[in-house]
């Protein structure tokens, strides 16, 4: 049970870090913030890879592989689309169309 408690402690403190960091993002960047943080939530890929690669049961493996696909779409799609957006936000030199 102490294990679970440690995890809850980590989770709670990380939430506060999140609040502190995110509050400073201006409204202009809220869409890239969402897609960027979304890519980060693809960190589930770690769990997916473990379940897919452990070779435990057939069902678990299939679930794991699908989870890898989902999480990877989340990661790659999220980062690439965020980058696409943020490139547009970079200040353009005057006169450029």
């Amino acid at each position: 049970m102490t294990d679970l408690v440690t995890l809850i402690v980590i989770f709670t403190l990380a939430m506060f870090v999140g609040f502190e960091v995110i509050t400073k993002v201006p409204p202009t960047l809220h869409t890239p913030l969402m897609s960027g943080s979304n890519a980060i939530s693809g960190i589930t890929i770690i769990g997916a890879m473990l379940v897919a690669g452990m070779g435990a049961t057939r069902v678990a493996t299939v679930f794991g592989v699908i989870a890898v696909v989902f999480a990877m779409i989340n990661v790659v799609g999220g980062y690439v689309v965020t980058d696409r957006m943020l490139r547009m936000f970079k200040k353009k030199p005057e006169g450029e169309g």
Partner: protein
Amino acid sequence: MTALIQLVYLLAAVLFIVGLKRLAHPATAQQGNLISAVGMLLAIGATLLDRQILSFRLIALGVVVGSAVGLWMARVVKMTAMPQMVGLLNGLGGGASLLVAAGEWHRLVQAGVRLPANIAVTIYASTLIGAVTLSGSVIAAAKLQELVSGRPILFRGQHVINLLLVLAVLGIGSYLTFGPDHPALFIALNAIALLLGVLLVIPIGGADMPVVICLLNSYSGLAAASTGFVIGNHGLIITGALVGASGIILTQIMCKAMNRSLANVLFGGFGSAAAAGGPDARTMALAARGVREVTAEDAAVLLGYARGVIIVPGYGLAVSQAQHQVRELADLLEKRGVSVKYAIHAVAGRMPGHMNVLLAEANVPYDKLFDMDQINPEFERTDVALVIGANDVVNPAARNNATSPLYGMPILDVDRAANVIVLKRSMNPGFAGVENELFYGSKTAMLFGDAKKSLTRLIAEVKTV
């Protein structure tokens, strides 16, 4: 080795935090996103070193397929469709968490392990959050893509059914946690959770979508964190919590911008025929007064000889994808010495920052975009406010009509400008189903038609002024 892997996960989490911090300014944001991506790469690399992994073939397959699909989606998606894209990505994150938890459950149960309560509870929580995120996001994306009606879908006894389902989930969850493992019940738990995700999102209407997308964004983070609980991984928990916090903050900002509570957004059925009611006496009187239509020629003269113009974009701009025309018109006006600014309401569009992204795509410098508090004092000194496909966020009823469903919502004070030109497709009321007295005001001129076509006409006319 395990300690090293765990430390790499910590490093990845730190890179995510640094990356998010850099996202706070347009100049450093792109770099921040890259830093965060490096963190992800490190985390994936470290996982491959884990000795629990016996076969890499299937993992490689999943990574290649997922990357290809993700890359394709990110490349082809239009900036106007960004809310659907983010919605769908949220759902996939949730789906991954659901599958990881279910796979882990199957592995443990098949191995004959009697799940201790502390592990069982994390698995059930993870499948629950994952399933609600998955089905809720799919419905939200379908609504945004107009595959499903954007209007709230309500039926009798909706709240009762939702409550019963929540109770069923809690009941089955606790039974499974403390009682014997039971595959059929586990499947039932997941099915109910998926159904719950659908039922929670269908009663929410189009203009409330920014709130739902934010909330689902938060869920996708919490789902990742819950996966961390299942596999006992600190990196996942920290990272998931960051995203969860981000979604919660954005949800709060959106609710505040509409002056509504989260509960009201989720359960209010706002904008349905029932909520809007029939036209009241005031509205009838307004409609009798009629609106003043203006030709593109006259509107162009008004704009061309103004000293200052404030452009107020809304969802209509996104629908007709007119962001480039807006920029072209603004350029023409600025060449004539007209000062042009943009007023962005927090809930304009279908997700936070939606208008900003569209205008950024059209190369509008971000320092010309102002949020409500900055721009509102300027309207009374402005010659022309040009409203493009915005409705509820400029409805003065929010300020002066206590019986309006919009009453109390902070709005852009467009009606205080000397002249108002409204580009609008038709006289259909906005999402909230509320008539907008701005359109009937003596200073207001309506230019009907698709925003892109109207703007193209305006551009041609301004050139000849």
